[in-house]
């Protein structure tokens, strides 16, 4: 039996069936059966997702989808059950599979009552996330996108830490749902124009400029897409929900709260369906990304609440990725996608560690801690490794991503001014500052108020099992990044110069003077049909089989 034709459905079904079964098992106090069940289900899912990199065809054509499953579901409107992965989503699926068992282990003791509800919702969240990464039908995708809100909202509302939980849950839901409603209008408009929800078809149409000739409508449509995703990321001015939600959500939920879903959606749908509009708006997003990096880092610097600190550091990190992907260079996009993986892993480790501290000392207030290094040598080791990965120490994974992103930003023809790259780079410095300062305040110095009076204990076996895989991955991903890059690059290269394939013919007569194309950034006002003007000249030249003109890409500044 060849698994390749059904593996994606199996990946979706495993947690779904698991959630159904767990919901039927009655709950008894002090009973770990739901946690054990959830662990088994998530491990099985992880095993299934590992099938993907194993059998992924790295030599396949760029931008093609593998493990394709495509069958009709609803006739009118034409909705298909269409799943598939490419270089972009493959590792994200594995990532989602990998984080789930860690999430279960992190909740092992943290969630004591209503475990049935918790693990059922957790697995449903897992289904929605995997569905988002796998769906290639716009409509199916939208279903999972909305579905991802519900378990998360309930997790926050039910298992929140303080009395503020209901407000935080509703805030989270509204922030995400209202733009999604507008996204639905945009999708319906697309459907009205093209008669299809199928992503590959829409991409092909977009490449031929065949979706609509109404530029205003296309613009509004692309903005609707972008806004819905930007909230979920969150991109700088739309981050209002993040800190509340992070503060309230239990560790397992916080690990999947921000970042990857929104960023993936931008890469897949905004870039896929609106390649031109995305390039036109890129300078703005680069600016917002840079602002987000600095803003998040500065706010993180002054927090005294550990969860808030982690929330703003998340904002800073995802803004880094935004900066990377909107450079529209192969390096920037590759680095961005790689950094999505890193950010999720580092964020997961950080939140798990904070959760461990909270389990022991019952507070997130940084001022209550201090001098823990002597009490918990293992924990401090893990904290330091995570911190170093987060701040981008060479040889650890964060370095690879940040390096690629910043090099991409330097090369990009879209970054409005080198100023933004510089602002972005400060994030690295601030990042090191607040993370290391946090370590210093928690683990070194005198014993704090709380850390003195509570006994506490070092990592137990289960906690070792949670953290070691993450720590090893930080190192492996820092040293052997090509393993991951191989697949990611097949997407990144295609996304960075997608319009070239179409525009190459058009710009051939003009390619003798590609420098004109660099008289940029009047970006928004340029008519949309000149997409070729925004293509990296070397890439454009490569596409028409000519040697690249000797342009120093940084020199324009």
């Amino acid at each position: 039996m060849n698994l390749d034709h059904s593996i994606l459905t199996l990946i979706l079904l495993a947690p779904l069936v698991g959630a159904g079964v767990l919901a039927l098992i009655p709950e008894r106090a002090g009973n770990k059966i739901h946690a054990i069940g959830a662990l088994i289900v998530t491990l099985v899912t992880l095993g299934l997702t590992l099938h993907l990199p194993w059998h992924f065809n790295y030599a396949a054509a760029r931008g093609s989808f593998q493990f394709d499953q495509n069958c009709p579901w609803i006739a009118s409107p034409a909705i298909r059950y269409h799943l598939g992965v490419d270089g972009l989503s493959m590792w994200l699926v594995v990532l989602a599979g990998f984080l789930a068992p860690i999430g279960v282990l992190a909740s092992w003791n943290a969630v004591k009552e209503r475990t049935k509800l918790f693990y059922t919702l957790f697995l449903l969240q897992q289904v929605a996330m995997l569905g988002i990464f796998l769906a290639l039908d716009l409509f199916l995708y939208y279903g999972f996108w909305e579905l991802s809100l519900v378990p998360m909202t309930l997790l926050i509302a039910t298992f929140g830490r303080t009395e503020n939980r209901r407000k935080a849950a509703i805030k989270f839901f509204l922030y995400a749902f209202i733009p999604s409603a507008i996204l639905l209008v945009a999708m319906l408009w697309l459907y009205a124009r093209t008669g299809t929800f199928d992503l590959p078809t829409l991409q092909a149409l977009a490449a031929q400029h065949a979706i609509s000739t109404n530029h205003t409508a296309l613009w509004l449509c692309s903005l609707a897409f972008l806004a819905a995703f930007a909230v979920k990321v969150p991109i700088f001015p739309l981050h209002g929900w993040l800190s509340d939600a992070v503060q309230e959500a239990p560790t397992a939920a916080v690990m999947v709260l921000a970042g990857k879903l929104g960023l993936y959606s931008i890469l897949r749908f905004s870039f896929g369906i609106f390649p031109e509009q995305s390039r036109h708006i890129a300078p703005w997003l680069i600016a917002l990304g840079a602002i987000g990096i600095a803003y998040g880092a500065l706010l993180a610097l002054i927090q005294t609440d550990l969860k808030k600190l982690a929330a703003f550091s998340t904002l800073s990190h995802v803004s880094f990725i935004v900066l990377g992907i909107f450079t529209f260079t192969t390096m920037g996009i590759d680095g961005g996608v790689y950094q999505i993986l890193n950010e999720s892993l580092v964020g997961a480790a950080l939140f798990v560690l904070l959760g461990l501290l909270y389990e022991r000392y019952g507070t997130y207030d940084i001022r209550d801690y201090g001098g823990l290094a002597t009490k918990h040598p293992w924990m401090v080791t893990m904290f330091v490794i995570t911190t170093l990965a987060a701040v981008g120490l060479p040889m650890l994974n964060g370095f690879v991503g940040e390096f690629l992103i910043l090099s991409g930003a330097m090369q990009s023809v879209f970054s409005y001014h080198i100023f933004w790259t510089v602002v972005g780079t400060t994030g690295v410095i601030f990042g090191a500052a607040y993370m290391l300062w946090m370590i210093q305040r928690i683990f070194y110095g005198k014993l704090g108020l709380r850390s003195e009076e509570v006994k506490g204990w070092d990592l137990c076996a289960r906690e070792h099992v949670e953290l070691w895989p993450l720590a090893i991955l930080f190192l492996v991903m820092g040293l052997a990044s090509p393993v991951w890059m191989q697949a990611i690059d097949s997407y990144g290269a295609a996304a960075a110069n997608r319009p070239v394939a179409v525009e190459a013919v058009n710009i051939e007569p003009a390619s003798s003077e590609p420098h004109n194309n660099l008289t940029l950034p009047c970006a928004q006002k340029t008519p949309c049909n000149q997409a070729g003007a925004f293509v990296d000249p070397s890439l454009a030249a490569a596409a028409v089989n000519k040697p690249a003109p000797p342009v120093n890409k940084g020199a324009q500044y």
Partner: protein
Amino acid sequence: MPTNLLTLLPEIILTVTGVLVMLAEPMIAPGKSRKPLGWLAILGTLASGLAAFYQLQLVNASGPISGFYATIQVDAFSVFFHLLISSIVLVTLLASLDYFEGPVSHAGEYFALACFGATGMMFMTCSVELLMVFIGLEISSISTYILAGFRKGQATASESSLKYFLLGSFATAFFLYGIALCFGATGSTSIGAIAASLGTTATPALALLAIAMVVIGLGFKVSAAPFHVWTPDVYQGAPAPVVGMMSTAPKAAAFAVLLRFLFNAAPMYRNHWIVLIEILAVLSMTIGNLGALMQRDVKRLLAYSSIAHAGYLLVAFTSIQQDAVAAACFYTAAYAAMNVGAFLVITQLSGYDEQARTIDDFTGMALKRPGLSALLGFFLLSLIGIPFTGGFFGKFYAFSGAIHNGHVVLAIIGLANSGVACFYYLRLLAALYARPVREDATLLSPRKLAIPAGIAIAASAVATLALGIMPNHVLNLVQRATPETLPAFSVAPAVSTLPPAAPTEMTR
């Protein structure tokens, strides 16, 4: 079977059932359980549903059947609504079997009135003669007026009933006035004849006024803003299972009449009435959602939400006929499934004496009644319009039809509104799953869920889910319903059967 009898078969079965229940009621000794009457009513409703299904087979085989001098027309459209109404009433009856158990029981009347009400609603959907529609409207309205006040001895119940009666009579007066003006303008009250002569009428102003009056009258019935003021008070005072029924079945019937009237009788004035419908839709959505934001009482909250849903449904009317009928029918079905379900669960959660009323009373309910709370959560998610539920596809078809026909602004207003709407649904949902505000808030010892009520709730949940996962089956039915609603007018609207001279003479 004679054709005439056949066309009204479901209605006749229900009427006979109602009469039998009334006759049998005095034979049961006072203080004894009235449940057998309930079962009789349930059997009758089931039989009428089967009769409607039988009609569907006939219609499938040989096209629409008309009877009683072409005042009644059985087509896929009417059969769809017959099936819908009979299922709503069936589910409501099942759920209220135990509701009216008590020392002073009027359950017999209740079961009979439900049957009569259903008869009236069904009658509305299959009449193609406005006066017959009016009779159906009256039958259904009078039954629901009484049902609204069924929690006897409570001030809110009397208020509910009286308010419903007064404002409802007002509405029927408007409707009747519209019919009269329509007759003035066209010389007929038959839908086919009106359509034929509207094009040649010498008094278009009168015709417009007539259309506006009919829309207003039906607007009251579907509680579209600005004719919605009765809704919150009536829903608050009426017994919860009755609210479930009367927020869906009479509305479905009124929407059916509106569809038939606007698309069959007055397609020529589409450009005019579409403005009216747009205004009603925007007002209903906005007022409904904003009003619901401030409610603490769960039934009032759902009352405002039902106003908003009437608005979403009206958005469907702005499409071209084919889409509009399909979308509106689908939405009616989806809305019926989820709203009836929500009210049935609320009936169970708040207790038959309706102790739990406000959102605070429902806080932490998931700890005590996890299954029912999860179902209420599911219905609320469907009302929000989360994918894989019936509510989602209802909104989807309505708004995509509007976008197809260029009403993008309307769709954006609608979807922004559904964003606002999720705020109050979520407040209730989050409350269900939050920890109780007061630990001593042990409202009632969890009452065991009666089997019939359980079946009813499960049926609503399955229907809501099925409409969200496999909407094709229902969609096929409603799409087939479309062309038959307008037998000839889409092709040749010109042939006039009645001399349009009469009104012109009058105006001279």
